[in-house]
């Protein structure tokens, strides 16, 4: 029998759970735990410079690896600083366990120093949370936390740990719990066979089908199956922003992604479809535009692990509750050996879809002319070429995010790492840091904007401490571009506080941390600068790319319209 203090149990549990990195920041209520981590060397603690960055770093790692990220913060301000990152993970269903120090049990409720009811604060943005009430329950609670975070529809779990629970003087028996039992939590393992059969029948009979797949396929590790199924049927597929890469974008059947800034052909195909096969997507308002005008002629098959996602905003004709992977596999076996009922209709449908695609080819944006400011789109296209489309690309939030998603071509899942649901500026850089640490030999690049980068740029110091060689491409338009775009479109170009008046000299800023910065202003400088940036995998390089501040992101759905109602450029609309 092994007797351990609560703090040592936490360190030991993390080892036994196979956690390699934990991101955190110390403080009074967490010090017993920090001491326990110090006295071991299996779990590596990464000291960030702001707790929000700890959650984003763990989140980035979780998105890239499919495993739960882990965070440790102290009580009060440490925990509240983590809130934005917890909400970010929650909105995108990312597995994460956040361990929060708390004031000692006897002080709880007394407004003690650095006391915050963090379980209360985070209640609406966690999958579940626990408060430790006795040190002996630590192994079991932690096991439950990791289990809940990473099964079913994944999400963040908060564990609140009062300081006395980790006191070095109190020791209890430690056994690593191999299994968990939660009587009220039984995530579905497969969909209803009858419903799947019905869905497949509709799929085989469809005349204008479209697959619409989302983050659930990525987190559900169902990309291979999806690719198989879509190829077998020969139907067009569009993904959500979160689902990018689940089906190879370079394949002819892939129409790109859909929604507010999705591709013209995706939105047109959705609008005209007679069958939508939605898998692991949640009919988010940034996808559907006005739900009352959404896809007027389509029947809808909706597969999701989370029953509450089904028929939440758009009614499903064939709901299937189940994990993407097993449902897709069942669909594949049902499709095999069957022919589609209307091959001639499908040919016609493809002619239409290809027509939409051809309509916009070469018209997506106007490349810069010699002497003009660079277009952000051409920067992303060059980035994609230089990294052969194989990098992990994280983004912040704004125009640069949309350009990164539109112009980088992703053939693998988990490669575009972006805050889709919450839209958190500041996410990209720490997320890239978390990924690079776990995938040191891969290219990891953060596409950011000068506004977003300044929200988390303190993490340069963390990258310096741990030698994290991420690349940062700052699409510097000297403005909060996305805000400015909305002001151009809706407020007669009154640019209320969307202009960054006093930007730092990013070159000097980066050099202050001992890193390399390259400023790019012309097209001739662009590719050489990118080549230089990616030459050494282990060096942090920052590209400050001055881009056209007047550029807008298009297509852009017209508010309150249907899927097909889009602005296509500053002068064209559908």
């Amino acid at each position: 029998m092994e007797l351990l203090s609560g703090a040592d149990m936490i360190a030991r549990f993390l080892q036994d759970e196979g956690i390699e990195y934990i991101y955190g920041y110390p403080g009074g209520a967490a010090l017993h735990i920090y001491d326990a981590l110090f006295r071991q060397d299996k779990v590596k603690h990464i000291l960030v410079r702001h707790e929000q960055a700890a959650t984003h770093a763990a989140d980035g790692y979780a998105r890239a690896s499919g495993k739960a990220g882990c965070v440790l913060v102290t009580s009060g301000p440490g925990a509240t600083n983590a809130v934005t990152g917890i909400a970010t993970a929650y909105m995108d269903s990312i597995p994460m366990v956040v361990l929060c120090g708390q004031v000692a049990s006897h002080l709880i409720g007394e407004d003690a120093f650095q006391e915050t009811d963090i379980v209360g604060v985070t209640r609406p943005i966690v999958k579940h949370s626990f408060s430790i009430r006795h040190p002996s329950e630590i192994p079991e609670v932690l096991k439950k936390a990791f289990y809940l975070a990473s099964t079913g529809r994944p999400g963040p779990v908060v564990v609140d740990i009062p300081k006395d629970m980790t006191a070095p003087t109190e020791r209890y028996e430690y056994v690593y719990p191999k299994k968990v039992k939660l009587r009220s939590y039984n995530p579905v393992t497969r969909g209803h066979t009858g419903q799947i059969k019905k869905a497949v029948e509709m799929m085989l009979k469809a005349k204008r089908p479209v697959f619409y797949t989302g983050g659930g396929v990525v987190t559900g590790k169902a990309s291979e199956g999806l690719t198989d199924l879509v190829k077998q049927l020969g139907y067009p597929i569009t993904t959500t922003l979160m689902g990018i890469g689940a089906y190879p974008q370079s394949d002819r059947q892939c129409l790109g992604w859909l929604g507010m800034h999705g591709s013209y052909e995706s939105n047109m195909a959705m609008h005209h479809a007679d069958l939508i096969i939605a898998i692991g997507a949640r009919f988010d308002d940034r996808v559907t535009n006005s739900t009352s005008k959404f896809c007027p002629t389509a029947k809808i098959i909706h597969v999701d692990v989370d029953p509450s996602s089904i028929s939440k905003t758009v009614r499903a004709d064939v709901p299937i509750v189940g994990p993407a992977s097993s449902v897709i596999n069942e669909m594949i076996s049902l499709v095999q050996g069957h022919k589609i009922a209307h091959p001639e209709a499908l040919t016609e449908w493809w002619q239409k879809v290809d027509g939409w695609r051809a309509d916009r080819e070469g018209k997506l944006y106007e490349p810069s002319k010699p002497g003009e400011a660079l277009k952000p789109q051409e920067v992303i296209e060059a980035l994609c070429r230089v990294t052969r489309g194989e990098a992990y690309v994280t983004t912040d939030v704004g125009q640069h995010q949309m350009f990164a998603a539109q112009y980088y071509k992703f053939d693998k899942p988990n490669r575009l790492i972006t805050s889709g649901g919450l839209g958190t500026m500041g996410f990209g850089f720490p997320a890239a840091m978390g990924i690079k640490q776990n995938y040191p030999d891969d290219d990891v690049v953060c596409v950011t904007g000068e506004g977003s980068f300044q929200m988390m740029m303190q993490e340069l110091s963390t990258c310096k401490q741990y030698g994290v060689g991420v690349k940062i491409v700052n699409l510097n338009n000297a403005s909060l571009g996305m805000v400015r775009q909305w002001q151009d479109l809706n407020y007669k170009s009154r640019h209320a506080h969307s202009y960054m008046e006093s930007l730092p000299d990013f070159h000097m800023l980066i050099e202050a941390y001992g890193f390399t910065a390259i400023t790019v202003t012309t097209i001739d400088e662009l590719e050489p600068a990118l080549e230089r940036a990616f030459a050494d995998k282990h060096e942090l390089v920052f590209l400050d790319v001055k881009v056209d501040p007047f550029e807008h992101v298009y297509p852009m759905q017209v508010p309150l319209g249907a899927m097909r109602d889009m602005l296509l450029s500053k002068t064209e609309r559908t």
Partner: protein
Amino acid sequence: MRHIISILLENEPGALSRVVGLFSQRNFNIETLNVAPTEDPSLSRLTVTTVGDDRVIEQITKHLNKLIDVVKLVDLTEGNHIERELMLVKVKALGSARDEVKRTVDIFRAQIVDVTPSLYTVQITGDAGKLDAFLQAMAPVGILEVARTGVSGIARGDKVLSL
């Protein structure tokens, strides 16, 4: 439509706040709420009445089911059920009104459980409609205080809500 949803809930600190929080977070409405431990000390039974169309009720039950602390749930209004609420009311009882109140109490099969020279405390059980009717009947006499438990309910027949 009005629905009565009964839930078996882990008897854990914070469990109730998750249920209540869900309603406010997602803009669902709570008309009444009633919660107490069951014969199994690890479980509470919570009954909530809410109003919404089919889509909203479907969302409410799905989201409730998603809460880790919710062990089991039933929408009692989907079948035959018994609905009860208990109410304690202090009503003015002066002069001729004293008899008048007593008669009404009898009609409603309520009971007077406490008296003072100027008021009666009445206990009444029934469905929410009956309690409302009683309050309406007492309004002219003068209602001084009302304490209602909120609706509790159970399915008729062999159906049971248990683990």
